[in-house]
């Protein structure tokens, strides 16, 4: 590995949120990240810091991660006030250290929302998203032989839009970025991915009311159309999906 002084290595000051458990008061602690290769991802940088901490007998920084290629939705923290860091359309694991300069101070905080509880340090309990999905984010089909793939015609445009909505990885950046900690982009995407397809239509009314009802119950804020969610979403999901959910809500109530 290259050493500091080399252009592809930087030294950083990290200000990280540390919290021992869900009901313990947390605080920021400062660490030094030395000889960080600019080719590393943000999570790899944290790995290096943690290795050093483990060797010196300290409790390493706990953070969520899994696939490390931007498709699972596990990782994510606020980096200097931006969800998943300052880059557009990327998750935290896709953020590379080349976007930082030598000597930078990096503030790392967990997503803040009443509905997301801190488990430890930067690790969050986002099971509230699962509860919203359980309320209606599914289609009911009879088991049996697989139906023919082309038996139900789906317009290309609908398929594209449904796929764009289904790109949601449920990371929670929309809630984190929203000034009101609202989950409407997440729920909007999940409602849209079904309602745009013929298979989702039979349960559309029940689904919209159940998922929105559950979202309200879990203590998320209300959307004020600030569009911060759309800007921070690693999958760049459009607020058009929120408008579609609002339409579905109205349709469900009026029909």
């Amino acid at each position, binding site marked *: 590995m290259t050493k500091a002084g080399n252009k592809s290595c930087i030294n950083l000051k990290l*200000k990280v949120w540390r919290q021992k458990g869900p009901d313990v008061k947390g605080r*920021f602690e400062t660490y030094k990240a030395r000889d960080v290769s600019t080719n590393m991802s943000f999570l790899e940088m944290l790995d290096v810091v943690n290795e050093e901490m483990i060797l010196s007998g300290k409790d390493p920084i706990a953070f969520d991660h899994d696939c490390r290629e931007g498709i699972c939705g596990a990782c994510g923290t*606020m980096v*200097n*006030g*931006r*969800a998943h860091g300052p880059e557009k359309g990327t998750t935290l694991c896709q953020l590379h250290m080349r976007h930082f300069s030598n000597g930078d101070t990096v*503030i790392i*905080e967990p997503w*803040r*929302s*009443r*509905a997301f509880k801190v488990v430890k340090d930067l690790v969050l309990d986002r099971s509230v998203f699962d509860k919203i999905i359980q309320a209606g984010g599914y289609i009911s089909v009879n088991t049996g032989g697989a139906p023919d793939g082309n038996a139900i015609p789906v317009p290309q445009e609908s398929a594209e839009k449904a796929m764009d909505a289904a790109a949601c990885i449920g990371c929670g950046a929309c809630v984190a*970025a929203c*000034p*009101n*900690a*609202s989950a*409407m982009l997440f729920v909007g995407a999940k409602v849209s991915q079904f309602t745009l397809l013929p298979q989702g239509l039979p349960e559309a009314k029940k689904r919209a*009311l159940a998922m*929105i*009802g*559950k*979202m*309200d*119950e879990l*203590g*998320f*804020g*209300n*959307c*004020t*159309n*600030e*569009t*911060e*969610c*759309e*800007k*921070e979403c690693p999958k760049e999901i*459009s*607020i*058009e999906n*929120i*408008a*579609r*959910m*609002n*339409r*579905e*809500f*109205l349709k469900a*109530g009026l029909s």
Partner: protein
Amino acid sequence: MQWGLNWFICTLRSSIGKKLIMALTGLGFCIFLIAHLAGNLTICAGEDAFNSYSERLHALGPLVILTEIGLLFFAVTHVFIGAYLFYENFRARPEKYLIKKNAGGRTIGSVTMPYTGLFILLFIVLHLVDFHFVEKTDQTIYQIVLETFSNPGYAFFYIVSMIIVAIHVSHGFWSAFQTLGVSNSGYMSLFRVMGIVISLAVGFGFGLLPIYISFIS
């Protein structure tokens, strides 16, 4: 949440339901603002035109009273539901960020919405005291307007208030269409542009009135 028969109550209690009410009442105010501006602009046609507009408007009698009751109902609803949403949104993030940056979505209108709203409420109370509940037996409405705006301090306050109304409308107008679900990729930019056009019309239209009256007419 149980929906079923008590759909109306559930709608009012749900987040989207409350937003829908904010959108509908807000659009109502946008229509009122445009009508009010159109009426006020008759002042540019001179004293007689403005006084006769005022007389003809009040000659509508019950229609005016009905509209006033409607606007009062809209105002009370918009203010209380807005305040409740503000409280809920505040509560949704008990632990604030040490640092939070704008990702590029927020505008001056969207950031200041609750505060411009509160200011507009105070302005409306003052505005009604100055122009609506004022004693009109001895002087015409034109004289009242002329006299009120001859105070430079008041004229300045009025112009600032109109800029604040314009800022509120700049976010409120397109936001209402987004909430109503009318907005999609095709129409969203149209509503956003319309919102800016209407907010500019409101800001310049009302805001230039004191200047016009004091210096030009």
